[in-house]
């Protein structure tokens, strides 16, 4: 056994001491790389076996309770999630209609201005008209008094309640969350929002809910204060699209994805540019480096007897 080990390793070991053998550097490095790969396979394989054993031992003792169950949302094929796809702006416009007519009764979009809607959902004139629908308290004027005026593009979208306490008092003691970052602020992102909006069910046997609380298996814990808000034909779309529950949920989720990441389309456009420029820089820097190293890499050393 020792002889085998010795034969297997002696050649490699004998190259180590003494003077540098520069011409063998690349060869030795590639040998090392192969050894590293082999070691990685061996090490990770061993770890996998050990981990699986521990995991199986753990599972053997673990108990499963019905109350532990939390339904994860399925993956939906959101078009804007694809690498080369921008937001569907028709869907964004419909989503805004859903928010305005349904969600805005309880939820705010406190970081969104009417000017943000220009060129995305509305033309400038449409956005001005949309803003002008609201009366905004402004001031003080030259006489030191507050006054009301029509909304402008620079105004934020109005909040449904004057303060958080009023919001909580009107909603069973729980303030409805602001929706600007709701998509990026929840695990599962768009999938979770869509599943939540369309996932209301009757509470299963054995589940007791408090007054004003509803059952939704996608909500952590199952008990949610918000009642089901979207029904078939609850609003009428201005573009004539049939307003089914799933269509409403899809459009408002897309709209909320945009409010959370208004830079989305620009971001992807920049990603395409970066891919092209990065490839050019990478290839040119690589070949420049390779050109400089060529004489060193192809150097040969001859030893005279």
């Amino acid at each position: 056994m020792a002889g085998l080990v010795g034969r297997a390793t002696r050649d490699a070991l004998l190259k180590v001491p003494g003077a540098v053998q520069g011409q063998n550097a690349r060869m030795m490095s590639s040998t090392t790389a192969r050894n590293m790969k082999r070691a990685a396979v061996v090490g990770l394989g061993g770890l996998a076996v050990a981990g699986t054993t521990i995991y199986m031992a753990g599972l053997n003792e673990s108990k499963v309770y019905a109350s532990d169950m939390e339904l994860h949302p399925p993956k939906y094929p959101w078009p804007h999630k694809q690498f080369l796809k921008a937001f569907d702006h028709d869907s964004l416009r419909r989503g805004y209609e859903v928010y305005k007519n349904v969600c805005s009764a309880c939820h705010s979009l406190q970081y969104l201005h009417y000017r943000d809607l220009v060129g995305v959902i509305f033309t400038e004139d449409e956005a001005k008209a949309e803003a002008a629908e609201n009366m905004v308290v402004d001031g003080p004027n030259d006489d030191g008094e507050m006054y009301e005026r029509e909304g402008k593009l620079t105004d934020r979208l109005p909040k449904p309640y004057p303060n958080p306490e009023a919001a909580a008092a009107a909603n069973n003691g729980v303030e409805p969350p602001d929706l600007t970052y709701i998509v990026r602020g929840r695990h599962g992102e768009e999938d979770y929002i869509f599943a939540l909006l369309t996932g209301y069910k009757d509470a299963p046997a054995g589940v007791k809910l408090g007054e004003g609380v509803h059952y939704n298996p996608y909500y952590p814990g199952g008990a949610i204060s918000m009642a089901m808000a979207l029904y078939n034909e609850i609003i009428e779309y201005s573009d004539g699209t049939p307003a089914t529950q799933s269509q409403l949920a899809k459009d408002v989720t897309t709209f909320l994805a945009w409010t959370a990441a208004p830079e989305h389309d620009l971001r992807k456009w920049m990603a395409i540019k970066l891919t092209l420029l990065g490839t050019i820089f990478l290839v040119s820097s690589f070949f420049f480096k390779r050109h400089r190293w060529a004489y060193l890499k192809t150097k040969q050393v001859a030893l005279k007897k």
Partner: protein
Amino acid sequence: MEIKKYFYFFLSGYFSSFNQEMKPDQNVFQKMFFSLVNLPVPPNLTIMWNFGSLLGTCLFIQILSGLLLACHYTPDVSYAFDSVVYIMREVNNGWLIRSIHVNGASAFFVCIYIHIARGIFYHSFFKKHTWLVGCTILLVLMGIAFTGYVLPWGQMSYWGATVITNLASAIPYIGTDLVEWMWGGFCVGNATLKRFFVVHFLLPFMLMALSGVHIFYLHETGSSNPLGVDSDGEAVPFHSFYTLKDLVGIVVLIWLVGVVCLCFPDFFSDPINFNPADPLKTPTHIQPEWYFLFAYAILRSIPNKLGGVLGLVLSVAVLYIMPFFPKGYQRGIQYNIFAQSLFWGFVGNFVFLSFIGACPIEHPYDLMGVVSSVVYFLFFPLYILSYLSWDYVLMEIIHPGEKKTHVHVFSVARSVYLKLKNIVSSW
């Protein structure tokens, strides 16, 4: 004129820097410049030696993007979250600057962990001064990352700060006072946020200085190399061989960070941090960023609070003792299949610990965390054994009976080995 000339030489790939020797009439900047340009470097450094320059690039990117963010950030609990939203929505390309800063931090840790792993694999930790300064750089970087994570004042920022600063309360006698001193009050609040911002702003400059010391000590001894042999017999100038090689690595790094920032900006972030901090609402599952998860898992695996904190500190501080490990005959474990298996097992265990740190504290993850934590600390003594014993076995084969420098530690192993050898030879 002089600067223009040097710049031109730098751009040209054919500048033979060995000819540009230091002269007495050169000023200090010229001397520093030529000491970098002329640095003799082993010709066989692999891509694993690129991560030092990548870390320097990360530091530069983080400081630059951080300064831009600091122009608009407001360190006040009432405005911090809104100022971050302002940066992301109103500042020109503010979303991109913030994304670069957030994901740049992750890139920084990826590079530094690979850099440390390379040091362990090729025994760079025997360069004592360089390694010890490097360990300090890691600790300072962790401090910067932690204070930076608090600044957006999201839910995870607030609760992360509360949990981690509370750990200091485990220190006997002074713990509670220390925590209140850090907070600047009786809970994490406005004073905490302001001082964390100051610390987060200042520490990177300390990191720059430490990096300079790190490089200074490295240049005292020179780089190690993949063969683990003395490279004095054959070296090449740093410029332009390694400036160009580092440039390729820097382009790859910037490209990768750019792809993450533009295609997956929230990949390394916790969604909960998009919710403003609420001291009355504890998140169901509090966890730090991915780069702290291994230490966090070790912390949670020890039931005693002080013990957990010690485990957490030791998980990083253990690197400080590595320069004092006994030296083997070979420099590195590139020819040692047993030590390599151990090393890659350690890497796998590190990843596994990070996974456990992200899991809730419940069965079976708690048990797995304990086992994995023990394996983490066992690696270090076993690693010494693996390279010393392998050296001993090989040397016994090549020079049987000769007195070795490290054999005393392995007298038991030696007797076992000789018995095995007798059995095999008797067959």
